[in-house]
């Protein structure tokens, strides 16, 4: 079974099964964009989109899966047994990386920054992997890289489309070069998918930066982004620090990426499933 660490008492969008981390229904949250106070119960109804301004709050990985698949209960979780071997026995400021991983698992209820499995979207069987930014900034280390690679391989072997929802600050520093090389590994895996005429649909959510953008995430046959997501290699803050250059306010947003030809489409979360279904139908069309 999936997610032993999950406390299982959250709710999302009215579904009974759960692993989500929303505050109780009567608690209020401030919208990051329009600064209005919003009730959790209202956000639940809109898939965590601000009813006032359309701001897309971040979803947990499990909320994401639930929002997409036809039958969440039937979703086959995969590779949940994988754990970082902590190849460098890394620690910083007297805190072992292993402890950080334990903390992240406890906090998020999931076992790593990527969760993955097989399910159906609009009746189309797909290999789906989703990142969770809460888990050490959605960073890609050996487990994330391996789960993404296996998700791609399941598409290649099972001849079905692969869909990955990214949300990541980049490579995980605590696994150093092992993390960096996951960029090469995931990108290489996609070449296997190409040989079987199955698509890779890459969906970029807030935020998708660093090594993830510079590898598989930008290699989608189709690349979709949620509105207002931060998307870029460095991100505007790093750029401003690095070159002491003040940037236009929309730098490295979904809209910026669309304007610069990097993505195909910006899709509101409420239309995401129908958009993916549309695409899956087209790719399933007679050749």
């Amino acid at each position, binding site marked *: 079974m999936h997610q032993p660490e999950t406390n299982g008492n959250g709710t999302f969008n009215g579904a009974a099964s759960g692993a989500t981390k929303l505050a109780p229904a009567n608690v209020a949250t401030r919208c990051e964009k329009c600064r209005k106070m919003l009730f959790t119960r209202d956000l639940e109804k809109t898939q965590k989109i601000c009813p006032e301004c359309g701001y897309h709050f971040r979803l947990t990985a499990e909320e994401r899966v639930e929002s997409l698949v036809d039958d969440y209960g039937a979703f086959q979780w995969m590779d949940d047994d994988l754990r970082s071997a902590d190849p460098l026995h890394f620690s910083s*400021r007297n805190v072992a990386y292993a402890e950080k991983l334990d903390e992240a698992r406890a906090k998020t209820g999931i076992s790593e920054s990527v969760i993955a499995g097989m399910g159906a979207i609009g009746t189309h069987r797909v290999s789906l992997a989703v990142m969770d930014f809460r888990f050490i900034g959605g960073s890609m280390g050996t487990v994330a890289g391996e789960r993404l690679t296996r998700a791609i391989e399941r598409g290649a072997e099972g001849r079905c489309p692969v869909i990955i929802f990214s949300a990541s600050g980049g*490579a995980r520093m605590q696994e*150093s070069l092992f993390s960096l090389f996951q960029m090469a590994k995931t990108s290489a895996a996609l070449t296997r998918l190409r040989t079987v005429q199955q698509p890779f649909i890459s969906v970029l959510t807030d935020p998708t930066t660093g090594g993830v953008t510079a590898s598989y995430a930008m290699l989608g046959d189709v690349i979709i982004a949620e509105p207002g997501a931060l998307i870029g290699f460095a991100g505007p803050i790093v750029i401003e620090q690095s070159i002491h250059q003040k940037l236009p306010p929309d730098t490295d947003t979904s809209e910026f990426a669309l304007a610069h030809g990097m993505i195909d489409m910006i899709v509101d979360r409420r239309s995401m499933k129908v958009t993916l279904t549309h695409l899956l139908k087209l790719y399933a069309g007679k050749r």
Partner: protein
Amino acid sequence: MSYDLDFEKPLAEIDRRIGGLRKRGDKARPEEVAALERELAGATADVYGRLTPWQRVQVARHKDRPYTSDYIRFLFPDFFEMRGDRRFGDDRAIIGGMATFAGRTVMVIGHQKGRDTKERMECNFGMAHPEGYRKALRLMQHAERFGFPVLTFIDTPGAFLNLAAEERGIAEAIAENLQVMAVLGVPIISTIIGEGGSGGALGIGVGDRILMLENSVYTVASPEAAASILWKSNDYAPQAAEAMKITAADLLELRLIDRIIREPLGGAHRDHRATAEALGAALSEELAQLVALPSGVLLDHRYSRLRAIGAPASVAV
């Protein structure tokens, strides 16, 4: 050549004394000079024999360290430079072209940091824009079409981080190279000759063999950046350098690279020619092995190698 790194102070002192003796000209006692020179060699061997990772970062970034253009001069005398991405520009931070090496035509591609101020500006200190990676892509595909092995030389603080690079898709440019290199139908040997800085290094760094010069480093993020995030201060860069296992010796032990090329006494910057010769010999050996492989085997090996990187552990759940 002066000794100007922090940890070279004892060497600088001996060097200064030798210089003082030499200035006296004929009056200098040759035995005295020779003795001091022996002392300097011994001290250099001692200091360089136990460099910390952070000290190696200083050596890897040394302003006199040989750059790609130096290796081209020594190893590829008939180098024919190919310029431009045919799309937008010619990025001087990555140079490349064809040359004869070990009796065959190869494609040489490498970062170029630039030696003097003017060249450094031109080369943007070895930090490439998207068009640099796209030029490299064009050259690699050209090499594949003609069956030329590819030799890449990595020496960059990282890809350039500015608005223009984001606008033109620096992430996409690196990503595409990773994918194309994974299945490029000719042998690829990548050598870290100085700084292997993150995605900007990897963007020309996927290979059948990954070599490192003894004092080069390969990092997922600069020690300074890692320190500022994980230790909350740049001052901990030495600790970060240590913890991240960025040296050739560490990475060989972790089996992330294949081979270390020894540098001359006191570092590659003290003898460009000798460094180039050692690198050339290693490349020649590795290339001979790779060209002997049928293309299918070569690509299977390359994929298996990539596939196997950082296999996580499995736990009962």
